[in-house]
């Protein structure tokens, strides 16, 4: 009880501490100088309709690269953690299968639904990251949708074995390609991750905004494969 | 060269006097002790005969080099102690080698003989010898404390450590003696003198039957004779020292004889009338009242 009290007090103190922060900010103060610049010049500079995408992929491209890296690190970590138990859990799985107490088979409904939805989801995912510079969405979102497609597939068929080499390959190649694109920017354009080494194209079109779509494609593939990998690792382990 | 020869003669005379005086004093005191006990006692010259007899022993044994040298050290200590003290104030013959050092030298030279004897006793291999040495040394450190305090008080009083000058300062009447000008120092010093002379109640060092007379238990023949000679000389030296420190010294040999006799008489009477302390008791005794008296004497000089 005492502990609860202390917790409540500590939280109250923290909340009180946050108070001046919240009071300081209001929605009326307008954009910051930086945001103003982005809004005013972003479209011209990069040619992407989605300003957030411009910021994410180009202005703050390094962040995104880092973000990909974070995800990659997490995947590596998850694989490192869960991968080791692979053979053991496999054996266990087989044993439990023999005992008739194995993983529950996906229901008919799920199987059918998954078979039906899978291509649509994949397509949707690809759509999202292809149009990341135009509409809400982007590489990450697309990648997640892709991964959810595979997740659905994995749910429906518990014996499904994904092609790990392919996953790994896709992951590695897309990541390396992203870095290569960044370097191309450094060599051919203004700086590292500068997408403008490709022509900006026509504003609002699919093939526009320089290398941004390429980057988003790579990110989409990478995120998709990574998340799939994570989910798969967790599935096989638990 | 002539000077050295003269000094050598003087030294011999001085030593001759002190040896005979010490021996006779010892014999007399044995008689005094006998009187206290209601006996007649041994002849006055008995110490001479004992020393003669021991030197006339036909055989002897020794346990090793240090055993051999122990009595030599002891006698050297006694002789040296005496020779560093001016025995008679103003006398050329009895000034000895007091020019070599002051009171501190004498105080530390006493250790010389103690150490040598202890080493000789130690090499005998007899367990009782070191037992006696242990007791003796332990007791010695204890009675050194009031004595040191008393000496410091005197040194502070006269601002000198030279025995000659201390004696000189006490000339001119009985009231100039330290015994009267600095009675506390005298009391402390005289109590520690009891310990130094190793009579009762501080005689546990040479407990005759418990640790057959302690350190010299293996000593015999000429070794023993030498120790006995030293006993006479060393006693004389100590008496002369205390006389010089507290009782105005002596301007001629007769005054020295009288004063030292009286001082010795005092220790003998105490010896004859008290039982024995254990070693730890005597240590605590000396570090108690006598030390406090000594401190009081010193503090009085500091004020």
């Amino acid at each position, binding site marked *: 009880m005492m502990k609860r009290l202390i917790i409540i007090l500590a939280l109250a103190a923290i909340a009180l501490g946050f108070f001046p922060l919240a009071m300081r900010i209001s929605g009326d103060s307008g954009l910051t100088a930086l945001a103003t610049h982005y809004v005013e010049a972003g479209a011209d500079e990069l040619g992407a309709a989605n300003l957030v995408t411009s910021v994410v992929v180009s202005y703050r491209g390094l962040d995104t690269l880092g973000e990909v890296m974070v995800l990659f690190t*997490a995947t590596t970590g998850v694989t490192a953690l869960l991968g080791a138990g692979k053979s053991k859990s496999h054996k266990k799985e087989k044993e439990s299968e023999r005992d008739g107490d194995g993983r529950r088979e996906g229901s008919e409904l799920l199987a059918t639904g998954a078979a039906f939805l899978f291509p649509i989801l994949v397509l949707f995912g690809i759509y999202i990251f292809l149009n990341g510079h135009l509409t809400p969405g982007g590489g990450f979102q697309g990648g997640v949708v892709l991964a959810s497609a595979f997740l659905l597939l994995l749910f429906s068929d518990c014996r499904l074995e994904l092609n790990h080499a392919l996953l790994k390959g896709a992951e590695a190649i897309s990541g390396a390609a992203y870095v290569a694109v960044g370097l191309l920017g450094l060599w051919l354009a203004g*700086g590292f991750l500068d997408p403008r080494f490709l022509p900006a194209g026509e504003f609002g079109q699919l093939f526009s905004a320089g290398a941004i779509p390429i980057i988003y494609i790579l990110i989409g593939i990478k995120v998709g494969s990574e998340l799939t990998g994570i989910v798969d690792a967790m599935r096989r382990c638990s | 060269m002539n000077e050295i020869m003269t000094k050598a003669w003087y030294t011999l005379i001085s030593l001759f006097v002190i040896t005979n005086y010490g021996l006779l004093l010892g014999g007399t005191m044995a008689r005094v002790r006998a009187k206290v006990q209601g006996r007649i006692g041994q002849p006055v010259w008995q110490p001479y005969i004992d020393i003669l007899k021991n030197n006339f022993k036909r055989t002897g044994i020794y346990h090793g080099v240090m055993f051999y040298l122990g009595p030599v050290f002891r006698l050297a200590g006694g*002789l040296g102690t005496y020779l560093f003290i001016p025995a008679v104030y103003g006398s050329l013959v009895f000034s000895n080698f007091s020019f070599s050092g002051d009171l*501190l030298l004498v105080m530390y030279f006493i250790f010389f003989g103690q150490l040598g004897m202890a080493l000789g006793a130690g090499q005998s*291999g007899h367990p009782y010898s070191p037992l006696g040495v242990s007791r003796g040394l332990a007791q010695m450190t204890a009675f050194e404390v009031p004595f040191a305090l008393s000496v410091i008080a005197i040194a502070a009083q006269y601002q000198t450590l030279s025995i000659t000058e201390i004696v000189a300062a006490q000339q001119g009447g009985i009231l100039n003696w330290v015994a009267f000008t600095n009675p506390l120092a005298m009391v402390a010093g005289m109590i520690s003198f009891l310990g130094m002379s190793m009579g009762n109640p501080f005689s546990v060092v040479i407990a005759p039957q418990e640790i057959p007379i302690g350190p010299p238990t293996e000593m015999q023949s000429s070794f023993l004779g030498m120790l006995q000679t030293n006993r006479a000389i060393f006693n004389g030296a100590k008496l002369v020292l205390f006389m010089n420190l507290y009782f105005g010294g002596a301007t001629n040999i007769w005054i020295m004889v009288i004063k030292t006799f009286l001082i010795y008489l005092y220790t003998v009477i105490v010896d004859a009338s008290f039982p024995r302390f254990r070693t730890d008791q005597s240590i*605590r005794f000396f570090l108690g009242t006598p030390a406090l008296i000594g401190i009081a004497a*010193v503090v009085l000089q500091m004020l």
Partner: protein
Amino acid sequence: MVSPLYLIAMLLGAAFLHPLIQNRSKLAGQLVVLVVLGATVAIPLQWLMALDIATMQTVVFQTAGFTAPLSINLQVGVEESLFLVIINGGALFSALYFFRRRTREWEGSVQILLMTLVLGVNGLVLGRDLFNLFVFMEISSLSLYALVATTKTANSYEAGIKLMVAGGIASALFLIGVVFLYRMTGTLNLDDMIANKQLLDNKAGITALFLITASLLIELKPFPANGWGADVYQAADPGVSALTSGTSATAIFFVLYKITPLFGFELLQVVAASGGITFIFSQLLAYKQDSVRRMLGYSSIGQIGLLILVVALGSLYGEAFTTTMFGGIFLLVLLLGGNHLFSKAGLFWMSGITGQHSLGTMRQSKTVRLGPVGAALQGILTSALAGFPPFPAFWAKWIVITALLAFGSYWWASIILIGSLIEAAYLFKWFLNAVKSPVDPGTVHDEVIPEDFPEEPVKEPMAGASPAGIVARIARQSSGGWIAPFMATAVLVACGMLLATMFILRGRISGYRDMVLLLPLAVLVLWTVFDVIRVPFKLQIGLAIICSAGYGLVFLPGLDGIRLVFGLIFIAGSAVQMVPLLNRRGHHRGLAGMLLALVFSLGNLLFASSALEFFFSWELMTITSFFLVVRGRQASGAALRYLVFSLGGAFSILAGLFFGSSPLAALLLGIGFLVKMGTLGLHIWLPGAYAETDDDMSTFFSSVTSKAGLFMLFLLAGLFVQEAIPAGFAAGTRLESLLSGIAFTDLLGWLGVVTAFAGAFLALFKEDIKYTLAYSSMGQVGYMLLSFALMSQLGWMNSLYLAVTHLMFKGMLFVAISGVVYRTKTRLMYQMGGLITRMPITFFTVLIGIIAVSGVPPLTGFGAKWMLYTALIEKGWYLQAALAMFASGIAFLYLFRLIHVIFLGQLKDEHRTVTEAPIWMLIPQVVGIAGIMLYSMYPSLLLKPLEAAVAPFFETTISWDGYTVLSTLGYWNGTAVMYVTMGVFLVPLLWLLIVQRKNTQKVGQFNIVYAAERPYRPETTHFGYNFFAPYEKALGFLHKPLATRFWYRVVSVAEVAGSMVRKLYTGNIQTYALWIVIYTSILLSILQRGM
């Protein structure tokens, strides 16, 4: 100049492609990692070459083709480059560690994670965009999270989850802070934000800034919100812990360092407080630890806390720090951070390689005992971490304390010093547990009564002497990851040497006098090379003797007065005392070099011209002598005490050096020097250190090094003539006005005489011969102190006289005794006896020695007594004189016991075949005897030079009349005394020889009167045990180890504090979270209240 983007791109690409390469060839994958990490070190090095270091040039790299606030930029400057070299170097060594360890943890994923971690930290160091920093922080954090789990134990998962929760909270706080900062300043760029700092000068701004700071602090594991951190260190693989503590934490710290320009006064204070509290409490916690890795973890946390403290204080007191040294605060950060990174990582690796887990069980198990190489590595790493010279932390410590004290920031200075002391204590405790033999009880107790004497060390086969053998050995040892700590050590040593050269020379090479201070370091290096190429030990020692003699010949003639006296003691004394070592067989690695370095550092005390030079030599002396003490068979407890006390003293000196000539300086410096001298109350290290050292080196400690403190007292004597409490200060109460009259000299005098008494008294009851001598030395030093404190001509002469003669007779005694111990294989006196027949020369030495020590005329000792008492009475210190006399009486007791129980009495059966001590041990004895005899015969030979040395300081109170020295009180003619003594000795001797010429039979040892029986065993006939039993009965209450008890109490207070504090760490993840929240909220409310 290579763009940092290539660095990042390279790491990224390598990480991404690694799985593919790994699939092809495992080795290729590993090589890629090593190459890439190597490149991460090489690139910053290239930057360093391209940049202008003097002006701390920085170059900014933009990304995405836009300039800074628009896009993310990276900054490469001298600071970043240096840090990256260090951090990446550490990571590279880590990779090597993993690579050579070849454990199953070293999988492909771990290699990737290592690279991502390095990527993250590189981004952290280079990035100038706050959000970008967040991303990189997350990369490194995630890598760490995953790495923690590499041991695949339940504990590591548990620790990982705790770490992630804490890290999650931290990143949440960081995010909140970042967005608010963005909103308030309109930028995410750090430089812009610093330019617009005034925008943040309000409550919300401070709060947002604080959130970021708090997040960083939490990542750096502040007290008390750091239980999870310690858990991680405990559970993770040591290699990972090394990365956590070194690479990751250093980088995050660098971020904190980067954003400090944003901080206002209040925030800096809060940060400083947090850092300081973390530092001190972590050290307390570590002190109580049993688990090595957790202990190291706490140590890391503490060190980072110290870094934070230093940075915060540096920004607070900017000018004080920047004016002192080049680069100002950055240099400090670099030194401390780099030192910590390499040494701590090295120690973590060591713990991993040798499998050290629990301090408690290490001593019992024989498997983790370190070999010579391991011990050397761990010793160097530990010394570096503890801040001994010449390692970077030493210089940093010096700068920090200098600056803090210059600024008057005493509390921080004392916190840093106390914390460092505790740290040194537990680190070296670990070191000792790792290197000491199982025979060593390792506890800290007074007297060891060894059951049996250990055998001679097994002689190492000299098979590896050929070059091929050396290569093979190095290769063998470098497998299993040894390469990593080795490299770390090499880096630390190299940096240390470089820094030492830099600091000591300070750009001036005005002559060999400056170079001489570096000599100990050169010696250490050179003799280490000797060890590696297997130069025979005897040759090494011989060279050392020649070198110290050469040192003396070259440098001493330039000195005069008191310096010359001590120079002779330090150098000539050492050269002679080294001779017994020639007796040793087999190979003793590091011994000769360490010894010579000690001699040279002692000698350098004479040449130190500035406080830094002095302190450098002093600390060098401390650490080298510690490593010599450690070599003793059962010395670990003693060595630890020695180290802690020496270091405490050194810290006291360090603090004292900056108080000019105020009473405080006198107090602090005095304490430092008195510790070295081992005065009562500060002495409890002394008996153990002197006694438990190898027998042939005890003499060195007792007769040579103990004089260092005295020498410094003489040098700074002017400090101590003032009053302890200035008169103006004590105008108030009666008590104060009473105290104000007390001069330091009075205190020192009493301390000296009480030490003399206590030393003698404690020596009295020791059965262990070396303890007896050790306490005896303590007592003798007490006399020296007393004489020094007299501040009169005679007093100083006596102090110097004692210093010289003590060198001779105590050196002689220790060497003689070491010979006895060497032959009899026991240190307990009552087990010896009757050795006079077997070792006559040694007996004679001891005889001369004890006569000299006890001050019995006619030998030199009496001169000291005479001068002492004369000076004391002249000064009016009567009671001191009386106590000194009592002490000298007691000294006589133990000295007699020493000679009796060993050499006289009954010879034991097992010693019947004992022979005289080896020739090498006899040489110093003979030299000593010759010296003593010469000075006994002609004291004026010694007294007159001493008089001349002291002459400039005091009025003359003594005069000469031929050989007689006259004082105002008395006189002493040493020559005459000698002649008279010889005369009175020879006469009875001749008489005895004549009378007892014949018929005197030498008899056997059992031919004694034994109450008409015969003795049966020498053991039961030898009186030696508890020799002064009556004394113990009478005055035994003085024998109670009050000082020891006091210090035990101090230690146990620290321990209790540690164990109470660690109750905070319940191991419950939720409590940890609660602590984080409480920590944040409390700091926040303090901060907001402060506005």
